[in-house]
């Protein structure tokens, strides 16, 4: 194996700057997408469990649609196809005036994709709440909205913290797909350093180490959140 090691390349000002900027783009895309995904995903997940059949059907369609198309294809559709499909004025705005088009598109694509996965967790969480609580709420004369607000959601959101943790980690990894539409996030920057300097080993190692650190930090944060939100002694019904 012929290879000239040169770890110093990572600390040359230009390339170090690329890595740092890539790191911040990765964080920015992932966190923005995650915030949107939590909101949309919760709404869709709740929608899948409500009595209203129409809302259930729409939410179900959303989940199947976004889960069964690869994220890469979704990225491309948002970036290349949507500006052509919307009314002309909007399309022109998206192509010319939208600030930071790669970033915005990547966040939207990643957020709506992640939302479908969050929705499944939310639905599973709501379905794990024992039937008796739902019946008790009805017997007390609570409306559907009140039942969700006071009984189902407070319990289920605490139950789904652990599975959401792993979704949270996945968002950081999936944010690397933003490079396919030209956003220079961490993976793209490391690839670019590898191309410019032929020091692929060093460049990819740097990116790997940074991703591992992101995962570690995210895990530590989530674990303390899990401890804080765990419901002592709760046993859900068998799924």
């Amino acid at each position: 194996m012929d290879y000239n090691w040169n770890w110093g390349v990572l600390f040359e000002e230009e390339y170090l700057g690329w890595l740092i900027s890539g790191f911040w783009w990765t964080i920015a895309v992932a966190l923005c997408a995650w915030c949107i995904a939590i909101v949309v995903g919760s709404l869709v997940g709740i929608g899948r469990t409500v009595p209203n059949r129409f809302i259930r059907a729409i939410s179900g369609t959303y989940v199947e649609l976004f889960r069964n198309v690869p994220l890469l294809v979704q990225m491309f559709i948002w970036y290349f196809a949507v500006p052509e499909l919307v009314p002309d004025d909007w399309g022109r705005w998206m192509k010319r005036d939208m600030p930071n088009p790669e970033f915005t598109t990547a966040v939207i694509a990643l957020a709506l994709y992640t939302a479908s996965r969050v929705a499944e967790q939310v639905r599973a969480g709501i379905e794990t709440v024992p039937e008796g609580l739902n019946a008790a709420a009805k017997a007390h004369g609570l409306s559907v909205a009140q039942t969700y607000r006071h009984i189902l959601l407070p319990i289920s959101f605490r139950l789904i913290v652990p599975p959401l943790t792993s979704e949270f980690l996945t968002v950081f990894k999936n944010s690397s797909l933003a490079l396919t539409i030209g956003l220079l996030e961490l993976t793209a920057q490391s690839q670019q350093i590898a191309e410019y300097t032929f020091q692929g080993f060093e460049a990819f190692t740097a990116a790997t180490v940074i991703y591992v650190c992101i995962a570690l930090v995210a895990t530590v944060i989530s674990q303390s959140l899990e401890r804080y939100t765990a419901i002592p002694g709760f046993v859900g019904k068998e799924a």
Partner: protein
Amino acid sequence: MDDFDFGVIIQSLPFLWEGLQLSLWLTFLAIVGGIALGTLLALARLSGILPLSLLAAGYVNLIRSVPLILVIFWFYFLVPLVLGRPIGGFYSALIAFVLFEAAYYSEIMRAGIQSVRQGQVFAGKATGLNYWQIQRFVVLPQAFRNMIPILVTQGIILFQDTSLVFVVSLRDFMTASSIVARTEGRLVEMYLFAAVVYFVICFAGSLYVRRLKSRMAT
């Protein structure tokens, strides 16, 4: 959005079909390799031999915290360097997928192995089977059966993941669609078509998983 030309899809069907075949072939080989290696990793992790289980756990956690695209870049760079000669994009991608997916399959198999009751292992020991015989005849067959729906679901995810070979221009279905899209200037039609094809295949797969689950429940 006045002039759409969906004829471009029909014209390029043979080209796209070749790409789809590559995607499916890559998926199949990566599933087989991933499950085989993943099972070994799971066994190593549950072996009770400390260095072995730490090593396996370290590998799984490392792979699970980096994005697949980065892993693909890694192996495109590493494989020719280690072997000293280029072996073509397909095999580099295949190695990347097997090593990447093995980490995910090993978590599934670990759960599967743990779902087999301890008493069965004791019974195996009592009948005089050695470790490998117990795994081969008692534990793994049941672990596989319990995990089939999740293994198939992971297979569907893997099929979607193969679209990422786009980043190294390996000509799978996604790359083929995008080549047609660019050369013909028909981005909207081609990407929507790609979405439909992926959707149909993956949705059919998830319906199959649902049926498997309900059949297993009864």
